[in-house]
C-alpha cells in the first residue's frame, strides 16, 4: 500500500479544516480545541495539532490530506508535516487583508522546506468582501508560474478543482524532470 500526502496550510481561520472536510471520505480527524484567547475568538474552535483527511484511490494507493494548525505557536508542526509531501496548498482568507502578510511568511517557510509544487487558494470567494485572486497574486508576490485559484472551501467542486490544479502542476514538474 502506497500512501501519498498533500499539505493544506495557511493562516488562522483561512478555511483549511473546511477544505479537507469537503473532500475527505472520513470525517476529518481534527485535533480541534475550543478557543480561549479573546483575540482569536472569531470562531469556536481551532486546529491545534493537525487535520487529517483521506481519499482512497485503490487497494494499493491512498491520498492523505494534512491541514496545519493556523496559529503561530504551533509552527513546530509544520516541518514535521511537510516531510515527504507531494505538494501543498496555501489557503488565504481573501476577506482578511490582515492575514496576507502571514500567508506570505507561511508560503516562504514551506517553500524553504521543499521544492515541491504548490498552489495558492484565494478562499471565501463567495463573500462580498473577498479580494480578487489577481490582486492577491501581486500582494503575495507570486511568481507567474505559481497558480492562484479562486476557491470556496465549502463547495466540493471548488476544492476538487484546487486539488486537480495542484496535481497538474506536480505532473508538469515530473515531466520536466524527466525531460519529456
Amino acid at each position, binding site marked *: 500500500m*502506497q500512501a*501519498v500526502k498533500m499539505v493544506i496550510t495557511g493562516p488562522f481561520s483561512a478555511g483549511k479544516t473546511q477544505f479537507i472536510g469537503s*473532500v475527505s471520505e472520513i470525517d476529518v480527524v481534527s485535533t480541534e480545541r475550543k478557543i480561549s484567547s479573546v483575540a482569536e475568538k472569531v470562531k469556536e474552535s481551532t486546529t491545534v495539532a493537525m487535520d487529517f483527511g483521506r*481519499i482512497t*484511490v*485503490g487497494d494499493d*494507493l491512498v*491520498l492523505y490530506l494534512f491541514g496545519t494548525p493556523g496559529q503561530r505557536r504551533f*509552527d513546530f508542526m509544520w*516541518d514535521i508535516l*511537510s*516531510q*515527504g*509531501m*507531494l*505538494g501543498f496548498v496555501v489557503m488565504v482568507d481573501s*476577506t*482578511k*487583508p*490582515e*492575514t*496576507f502578510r502571514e500567508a506570505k*511568511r507561511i508560503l*516562504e*517557510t514551506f*517553500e*524553504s*522546506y*521543499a*521544492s*515541491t509544487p504548490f498552489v495558492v487558494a484565494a478562499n471565501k470567494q463567495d463573500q*462580498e*468582501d*473577498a*479580494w*480578487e485572486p*489577481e*490582486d492577491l497574486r*501581486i*500582494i503575495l*508576490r507570486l511568481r507567474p508560474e505559481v497558480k492562484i485559484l479562486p476557491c470556496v472551501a465549502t463547495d*466540493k467542486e471548488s476544492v*476538487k478543482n484546487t*486539488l*486537480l490544479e495542484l*496535481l*497538474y502542476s*506536480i*505532473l508538469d*514538474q*515530473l*515531466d520536466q524532470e*524527466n525531460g519529456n
Partner: protein
Amino acid sequence: MALKGNLRDFSTTQLLNLINLARKTGTLSIQTDSESAQMSFREGKLIYAYMGNNNGNHLAQILQNSGKLSAEQAQVIQSHAEGKSDKEIGHLLVTARRVTQNDIIQSVRQYILDTVYKLFTWGEGFFRFDANKLPGSGYITIPIDLESVIMEGSRRLKEWEILQDELPDLDVALRFTDRPDARLRNINLTVEEWRVVSFVNPRNSIRQIAKANNLSDFEIRRIVYGMLQAGLVEFVNQPKPAADKKESAARPQKGAAEPSPAVKRSVVVRLIDRIRGL
C-alpha cells in the same frame, strides 16, 4: 470587487504598490477618526489627492502654499471662486498673467505629493478603493509615477523596527525584477541609491553592498526596502525566517522532501482520475 480594509493591516505602501502593479483606475478613500483623504489613479498613475473636505476648489490655497500667490491675493481669489472649478480659476489666473501654467502644474504636483507622503505615516484608518471613480472634469489632475512616490514615502517611514522586520537577513542577494516596465530612469534615485543599484547582482549580499559603500545596516536597509517596495529589486533567494535556520541545517540539503522517485507519473495520474470522479 472589494478592495477594502484597515491601514493597520494593509499599509499605504502596500496599497500603492498594488495599484501601481495592477495599473488600477479609481479612487482610494481613507477615513480615520479625525481625518479623511482621497487619492485618484488612472492606469496605475497617481493623478490627484486631497485631504479633508473636497469642495473642488483649493487652487488659491495651493498656490499660496507654494509661494506663487500672497495671502491677500489668495484670499481675494478664493472669495471670487464660488462655483468655479480649479481648472476655471487656473485658466483665469494664467490669462491674467498672475501665474504661469507651469507654476500651477508644479504647485499642484507638490501638493498631491505632500498629501500622499502624509498618508504613509497613517498607521490606522479604513480604506476602500472605488474602481473607475475619478475626479470630475473641473479638477486639475497631474499624472505622477507611483514608483518614485512609493520610494520616497517608504523612505519617510524610517522606523528602525519596521525595517528590521521587513529585512531581517542582510546575507541575501538582490537582483533586478524583470518587470519590463520597471525602468530605472523613471525613478528618482539619490547618489547613494545609485551606488547601491550599481552593486545589485546575485553574487553580492546586501551586507557586502553596504560594506562596499560604507553604509550602516540602517542606511542599507532603508535604501533596499525602498527599492523592494517600488518593485525595482527582489531577493535572489527568499530569506528564510530566522527560526528555520537550524532545522534546514540539520537536514542534509534543501529538497530532501521533494517527491521521492517512488512517486511515479502513473500515481499522479491515478490521483487525478480519482479526484475528478469525486
